């Protein structure tokens, strides 16, 4: 037995770890939901990176649009070219500021309109794993953000806070397989549960074949489950199929927000009425 263990302990360690992973995945213990000191300190090593990248992104975008794109201008007008480049850089920079200003104004107006305390955040990264869908925003526990809080934009819902660090939070997108929320179809007031499918769309559960849902319908969060604010847009129905057999329709909804291009979001600083766990209710 001892020689067997000595020979195969690495393989046994791998198997034991995989069993632990299975257990954590299927039934994550509540005690592990909070961010411990190890992850809290470890995430701090990335802070300079995403802060710098965010700064550079804006700088490079401004430089690219305002200067590098002008290198094809005639060489004989070097002085003029420089002047134009400088002016264009300024214009581009102003335009970027203007666009950002507009977006932030829209966020502010929207924040006032929904009548809840919110905090604005910038998107600084995306989850690149094949199995999960999430993004990172640059506010964390210091701003009052907690797991389960809703993340929205004026264009529609984005998702829910999953893990919170100092100065950084992880958001589960509403297309992630672990997302579920109570929704209502705007036109026909049909209620359903929206679930992420892990692809680019959500599906509506428990819509009976007699209920009126058609492609093009707008789907809003109902707010009944207390997880997402009432009236926020989830997306638009792209297909509603009535199966010959089965109790419910197959309804697909495409999200109103393009998660790859969203830059700023609002976190609704209201604790969810149901304690958050990163799994389906």
């Amino acid at each position: 037995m001892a020689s067997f263990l000595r020979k195969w302990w690495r393989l046994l360690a791998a198997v034991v770890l995989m069993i632990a992973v299975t257990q954590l995945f299927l039934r994550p213990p509540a005690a592990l939901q909070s961010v411990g000191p190890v992850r809290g300190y470890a995430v701090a090593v990335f802070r300079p990176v995403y802060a710098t990248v965010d700064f550079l992104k804006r700088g490079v975008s401004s430089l690219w649009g305002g200067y590098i794109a002008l290198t094809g201008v005639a060489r004989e007008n070097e002085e003029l070219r420089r002047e134009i480049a400088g002016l264009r850089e300024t214009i581009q920079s102003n335009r970027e500021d203007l666009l950002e200003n507009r977006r932030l104004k829209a966020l502010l107006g929207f924040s006032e309109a929904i009548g809840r305390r919110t905090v604005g955040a910038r998107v600084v990264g995306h989850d690149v794993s094949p199995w999960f869908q999430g993004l990172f925003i640059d506010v964390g526990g210091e701003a009052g953000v907690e797991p389960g809080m809703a993340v929205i934009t004026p264009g529609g819902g984005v998702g829910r806070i999953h893990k919170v660090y100092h100065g950084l939070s992880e958001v589960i997108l509403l297309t992630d397989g672990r997302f579920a929320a109570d929704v209502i179809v705007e036109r026909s007031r049909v209620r359903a549960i929206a679930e992420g499918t892990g692809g680019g769309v959500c599906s509506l559960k428990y819509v009976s074949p007699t209920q009126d849902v058609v492609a093009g319908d707008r789907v809003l969060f109902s707010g009944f489950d207390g997880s997402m604010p009432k009236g926020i847009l989830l997306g638009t129905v792209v297909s509603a199929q009535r199966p010959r057999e089965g109790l419910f329709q197959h309804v697909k909804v495409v999200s109103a927000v393009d998660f790859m291009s969203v830059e700023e979001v609002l976190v609704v600083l209201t604790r969810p009425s149901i304690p958050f766990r990163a799994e389906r209710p």
Partner: protein
Amino acid sequence: MRLFLVLLAASFTGTALSVWWLSGFVPWFLLPDFSFLAIVFAGLFIPGPLGLLAAIPPALFRELTVSAPPWVLFLSSLSLYFLAREVSLRLFLRAESFILSTTAVLLLLESVSMVILALLVGSRSFSALWVLKEGIRVAWTSLIAVPLFMDLSGRWQRVTE
């Protein structure tokens, strides 16, 4: 120690570039998982406690940047390290084809495990398009592993000699 620092730098830089910079405009299946590569390299080429020590930071980077349930990615990465170590001790051949196939098999093993877990939880379905994209990611990451591992292991040999 030098190789430990190289692996740490490679996994940190790779993860940082993918998650904080390229993720906004490059699709996920074109972004190689450098932390995964660092863990597999530590398992295949660095013997003893130093290998395990070298595998811990990349495992932590994966834990922090993937929105999985808490500690799932960290523990599965350590499991991956022990598997790579076992492969290294039982079957090791320092050849391009071996590195390519080992990396691809370990990537597939991890991916299939995650898919099975996700299906068990009932949290998502996987389309044919997703399988195709995942195939591209596995192929791409395995191809990158070959020159990277050959170069790093050559350096490691020279250092140990």
